[in-house]
């Protein structure tokens, strides 16, 4: 059994994927727990005080957010397209799709900021003017969950912008796809969280 190892000094069998990908998945596990903490609290608080929640659409703007959800889904597909382009060494594709993903992510953030401003300034909720984090548990959980998701999107957009700049410098290619794949994992995870959040916060 001491055979194969001696020659090439190959590390012991791990997860059969490269280290950065393992690292990102492990990190995503902790992100799952972070959002589970927020979502779990939301579920429990809502069960305890169901009557302090509004019907879907009464306060929150569902059409705008549905459009925003669509944007994030689109950004996911452009992200995988960027990865596919990298695998094939398609430089034009890498640049195009990374740029598109960055722009879609930034637009998502812009729409979210617009949504927040509208809510804080122009919505009224339970007698008080403005729907703010201080507006009952509804406002508190809404802003905390979507806010932290938005924060994750922001981090993602910053990394994407950096990756896009590198794309223009010809950094990525068929021999260098790991960075795009790992960043993509993070980005899809953010999309995945939003899919859950959109459903439980806006629609239920």
């Amino acid at each position: 059994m001491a055979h194969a190892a001696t020659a090439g000094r190959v590390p012991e069998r791990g997860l059969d994927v490269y280290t950065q990908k393992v690292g990102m998945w492990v990190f995503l596990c902790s992100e799952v727990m972070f959002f589970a903490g927020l979502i779990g609290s939301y579920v429990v608080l809502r069960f305890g005080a169901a009557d302090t929640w509004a019907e879907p659409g009464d306060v929150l703007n569902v059409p705008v957010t549905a459009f925003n959800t669509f944007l994030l889904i689109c950004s996911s597909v452009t992200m995988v397209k960027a990865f596919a382009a990298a695998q094939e060494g398609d430089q034009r594709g890498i640049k195009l799709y990374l740029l598109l993903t960055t722009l879609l992510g930034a637009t998502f953030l812009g729409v979210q900021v617009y949504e927040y401003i509208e809510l804080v300034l122009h919505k009224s909720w339970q007698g008080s003017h403005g729907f703010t984090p201080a507006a009952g548990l509804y406002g508190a959980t809404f802003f905390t969950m979507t806010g932290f998701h938005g924060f994750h999107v922001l981090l993602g957009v910053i990394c994407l912008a950096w990756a896009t700049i590198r794309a223009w410098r010809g950094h990525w290619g068929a021999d260098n796809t790991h960075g795009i794949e790992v960043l993509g994992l993070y980005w899809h995870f953010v999309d995945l969280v939003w899919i859950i959040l959109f459903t439980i916060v806006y629609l239920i």
Partner: protein
Amino acid sequence: MSEAGGHAASAADDHAHEHPKYMLIWLYLAILTILEVLVAFLAIPKWMIVVSLLIMAVWKALLVALYYMHLKFEPNRLRLVALAPLPAVAIMIIAIMMEYV
């Protein structure tokens, strides 16, 4: 301990699979999103809305995880890592919810 051998070959190569049908998944997701919004405003009992929305949300999440995050094409060991936190999540939420039983 016999795992030591023969693993060099198993190192997953990025080209090991064809590109999944990314655009098709995208279409799926978009349609499900529209369906979700429609269902949310249907005049049916609330619990039915909640259940169907949750099913669609999990479905969408699975699509993203399996195809966009490539879990469908990853080695089982990596899938195990991805699933690891889910029992903890379930235990946490179920136990806290028991306060209302």
